[in-house]
Each structure stands twice: as C-alpha cells, then as structure tokens.
C-alpha cells in the first residue's frame, strides 16, 4: 500500500473487491469491475479462492457462505463451532494450556474421579450438525486436548458431515504424520491447524513439556501440504514475544513456506491463570497489526469476510464442551447454555444479547480487557469453591449480566 494514496475498498455480496484508486491530483479513475487486489489484501483473495473451491467440492458449504455474506448486514451470524472432544485428553502438558482444568487427569487430581456429567454422544453431534446447518453455520473445529487421541474421530466426522460443513482439525502435530494427513483428507477434512509456540526447538519442547514436539510439528506441516489440505500455523503470543528475533524467524519460515500464521494472545486462564505477566499489551497487539500489512499473519480480530476486526465472542466462534455447554470463546470458562438441553439458536441469541459478549468491541475481551478478566476469573474462582467442573453454568456467570434489550 502506498502511503499518501487513499484506497477505497468496496466489499460486495459476491466474492470480489472493487478498488478505487484516487491519485494525488484527486481525479478518480474509472472503477474497474473486479479484483484489483494489492498484496496486503491477499488474505481476502485467499478467502475468495477458497470459496470458489467450495462451489465445486462442497456446494452446500458454498451456498451457506454466500448466504452469510448476503445477510451479514442484517446482523446474521455464522460462528465457528469448536468441538472439544474426548474429554480434552492430551499427550502434552503445555504451560499456557486453557484446557487443563477440563481434562480427566486434572479432575482426578482434584476430585479422585472423572467428569461425572453426561458427555456428548455421536447422536448429539449429529443433531448439532443438523441444527448448525439450518442456522447457516458452516465450520467445525475439532480440538481437545489433542483431538487425534480420539479413536472415534472417523465416526465423528461422519456424524458432522464434511459435505455440509468445513471440518478443521486442531492438533499439536505429534500424531499428524503422512498417513494421518492422508486419512484426514480422505475423510473429507478441509484444514489442519498445527500449534508451534516457539521457533526455537528446545523452547517449544519445554513449553509443551514434550521432547520431540517441535520436530513432529514441522513434519506435520509437510504432511498436511503433501495431502493437499488447507493449513495454518497456530502460535501463542506472550507479552513482548512479537518483538523477539525468534518470532521474526517464525514469520520468515511461514512466509517462505506460504503457511498462514495465526496468532492467539496468551490469556490468564487455565494453567496460565496466575500469569498476568504473559498478557499482551496494546503495544504487542498493534505490532501484529503492522505485520499484517506485510505478511500472511492474522489474529482472531483481523478483518475478515468484509467485517472490521473485532472481538468474536458468540458472533465469530463458540466452543462446545464435552457435556454440551456452549462457551462463547475458546479461552473463557463461562457458559451461555447447553446444546443438549435447548436449541442452539436460543443459546446463540442469548449470547449475542449479553452486554459483554454481543455488542461490538475492538479489543479481545478475555485477552485485553482487565475489567472483564477480573469478572471472569472471580466468577470462576467462586464457582470452583463448590464445584470442580467447568464451565461455570449460565445462571451463575453470564446470567448475572444484563441484556442489551433490558
């Protein structure tokens, strides 16, 4: 982008951008009909390319994407549903893990027993898939812990239906070798997100408490590419890391390998609850926004699908816990309802009308808003005094916050 020039982007309901280039003498050029895309718009160009692919391979998904784009101005949402499966079982024990309190190993340590709550069945996931399809939702992320530990994963994919939804796998890469990558692609899998938290091998292995984690992750990238899967590298950013040489090396690797780099901000939750020192400042987050101009790097708050960058609670993503509780953000521990007990539509509407969650805000609520972080962590702390299970049910957490319409 050329500083001093004004670029006017018009985002139309079809998959294209119309670019007005206003020259310094203020004479607007005639608008060309389609697709003048500068390099720094490449993520949107990628969205366009991916949508064209879906029109051929997954027409139902393509239809839902177009419908969402046509109706988003009316306030229609189409969030990602992130499914935590297999009781979040994991082969690693990462220092920043937000899932540890949900895992059987942690529950046994604290209570002597597994989670006693009813867990989602394949029939529940099938029903969820059907409800989501009716609502125009088109993306499922499968995660854990480590999702590949689940021996019924193939049955889950069938229940979710990879022709109706894009199935995205979250993995630490340990088990994602060439055979697994081919298998995932053959099952109808769409994309894999592989975690790598440092480009220094010994640091990543130490952070993950697993020697060999780094080399397995790098091999997983290779395996994913060879199987023709969409791919991204997911990394956790702690305070000041964005300015480090290690992070620059990671960016360079992703640039060279053409792997989109997805950055999550460290949150003071789960295993990192006492680590406010890891929480990113605005200075860190602003630096990422500068880097977005040059590289294929993005956060969950990067502008996408024609919308400004913003907090995506409820509207952009919801986590489905193993027992059906819906959590409006991957890093929160407060529920907005249980999908095995009431319709998904009602739960999402309730979430959108919650004053913390629905209304527009730029900042990451659980990552940057200390007013919310204090409310969240105090609520979790109070809840854990009389129950070992997370998330905090709606009535005890978000249910105490007023609605937009009240």
């Amino acid at each position, binding site marked *: 982008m050329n500083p001093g020039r*004004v670029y*006017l982007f018009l985002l139309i309901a079809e998959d294209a951008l119309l670019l007005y280039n206003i020259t310094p003498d203020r004479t607007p050029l005639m608008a060309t009909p389609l697709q003048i895309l500068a390099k720094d718009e490449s993520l949107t160009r990628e969205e366009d390319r991916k949508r064209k692919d879906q029109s051929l391979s997954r027409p139902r998904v393509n239809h839902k994407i177009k419908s969402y784009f046509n109706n988003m101005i*009316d306030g229609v949402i189409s969030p990602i549903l992130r499914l935590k499966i297999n009781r979040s079982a994991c082969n690693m024990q990462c220092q920043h893990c937000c899932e540890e309190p949900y895992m059987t190993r942690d529950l046994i340590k604290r209570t002597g027993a597994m989670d006693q709550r009813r867990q989602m069945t394949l029939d529940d996931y099938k029903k969820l898939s059907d409800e989501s399809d009716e609502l125009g939702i088109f993306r499922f992320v499968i995660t854990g812990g480590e999702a590949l530990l689940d021996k019924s994963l193939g049955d889950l994919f069938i229940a979710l239906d990879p022709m109706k939804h894009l199935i995205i796998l979250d993995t630490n890469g340990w088990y994602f070798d060439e055979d697994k990558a081919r298998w995932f692609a053959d099952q109808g899998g769409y994309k894999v997100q592989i975690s790598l938290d440092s480009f220094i091998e010994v640091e990543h292995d130490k952070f993950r408490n697993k020697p060999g984690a780094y080399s397995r992750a790098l091999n997983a990238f290779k395996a994913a590419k060879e199987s023709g899967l969409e791919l991204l590298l997911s990394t956790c950013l702690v305070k000041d890391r964005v300015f480090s040489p290690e992070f620059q090396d990671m960016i360079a690797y992703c640039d060279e390998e053409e792997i989109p780099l997805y950055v999550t901000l460290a949150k003071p939750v789960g295993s990192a609850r006492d680590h406010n020192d890891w929480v990113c400042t605005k200075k860190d987050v602003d630096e990422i926004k500068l880097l977005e101009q040059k590289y294929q790097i993005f956060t969950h708050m990067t502008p996408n699908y024609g919308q400004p960058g913003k907090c995506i609670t409820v509207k952009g993503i919801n986590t489905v816990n193993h027992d059906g509780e819906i959590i409006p953000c991957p890093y929160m521990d407060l529920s907005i309802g249980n999908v095995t007990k009431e319709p998904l539509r009602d739960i999402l509407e309730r979430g959108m009308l919650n004053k913390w969650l629905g209304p527009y805000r*730029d900042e990451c609520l659980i990552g940057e808003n200390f007013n919310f972080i204090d409310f969240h962590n105090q609520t979790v702390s109070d809840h854990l005094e009389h129950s070992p299970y997370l998330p905090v049910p709606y009535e005890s957490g978000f249910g105490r916050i007023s609605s937009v319409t009240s």
Partner: protein
Amino acid sequence: MFDLVGRFIPHSSQSTYREPCSDFYKLNLPFPNQLKVRDHPDKSVEIDHVNDSLSHLLSKIKTDNQLSNILNGPTLPFFISKTSIPDIGERLEKIDFPSLSNSFCKAFPKSHFKAIIQDNLQLVERLHPYPSTRYDLFLDHISRSSVVGYYFPLAFNQFSISSQRSCMNSLPTHIPVCLSGPIEVSSVLTSYPSILFDKTSYSPILCLSGVAHYDARLIACFKSYGPHLEFWIISNCLLPGVEQVSEQWSGGLTIYHPI
C-alpha cells in the same frame, strides 16, 4: 442537558450501553485546552480571523445555560472552507479523504488510512443528511461560506445510533448545532491525526450519525485498527431486528458558526 464530563444526559427512553458510562475507551487528545486551529489550507481566510471567530463561538457556548457543560468534555476546533460539492460521498472521495490520508500517513509513515464500505455500491450518491440531525443545515452553510466550529466527540458516548439522532430533538436552535458527520470529523482528524491512536488504550469509534446511508442498515464511522486509521460503512445490526448498542461507539455533536 450535559453532565460533568460533557456527555448528554440520556432520557429513560434512550438506549445506551450502560449507566453510568464507562471509560475503557480513550481518546488521545493532542493537548488539553487547544481551542484554536493552528493552520488551515484555505489561504483566502486569515488564521487570526478563524481563531477570533472560534473564540466568539466559544464565548457563546460558555454562556449558554443548556450547552455550557459540553465544554467539560473533549473539545476539538475545526475550519471548513466554502465548498460547492453537494454530494457528501463525492466530497469525501475528492477532498476530505485525500487530505486525511496525507496528514495521517505523514504523521505515521508505517500506518495506513483505508475507507471500507460494506455495500455493493460506491460512496457517491449513497450518503445523505439524516432528517432531524440538522446536518442538512450544516451542509447548506458550508455551501455558502466558510465555517468554523467545535466537534465534541464524546457528547453521545455509548448511545445507540437511533438514540443519538433522537437527542437532537432536545438541542437548542438558537446556536447552529448538528449531530456530527464525516466532513467536520475528517477535518478534525486531518488536523489532529493522533486522536484515535493511543499506545496503551483502545479508542472510541467515532459515529458519523449526522449522515445516513441509502441502505438504512448501514452507518458510517471512523475507527482505529491498531496503529491504522479507517473509515467504515458497517452494519448497525446486532442481530436481525436488534440495533447495535456498543460501549465503544460514540456519537458527536458539532457546534459551528459561518464566517
């Protein structure tokens, strides 16, 4: 009418994010109590005459029983040259956005200014003054003479767009006022490009509710995206049939005087 921080006191029927208003989002005000313009591009009007007119306007506001408390909030001066481009969108594309872009990118060379429109048509012939906001009168004035004024960006902080507009029914008519729109806010941002750029805090989104898009679901605003400045036409819908009410959205009031 306005409280101790210069914010309009909402009626019970008006929709705001919460009361009392929170202060999570902050403007980066360049210098306190700067109530005069430092420079302006129209050399046919002397800077001293501009600032004398501003001082005169300021005195009127200070002595007005209904408006004086608005000066407790951020107060940003502007000057608009007489212009004869009647279409708001055309004027923004030809005059205001290029000036703003030059000013912002000069101040912050690593950052960008973008205008992004969530619609399938252009800005030209798509924006018009919203009835009852008195922005039509403001446009009429700037078509006949240069105008000086003050922009109060937090006057309707955390009000919904429809409530910002309904507030104008209560505003006095003996001093020219209007709900703020893109022309004078562009001018302010051109003069003070760092207002929405703070290293430690997120800034409010400056709603330009004096204008409406021909698609009533859309609204216009200026916002920062990290170190960048952006103009957006975006949806005003939280859900189908439910209007957005955001802690971050702020409507402004413009008080002005032709010179």
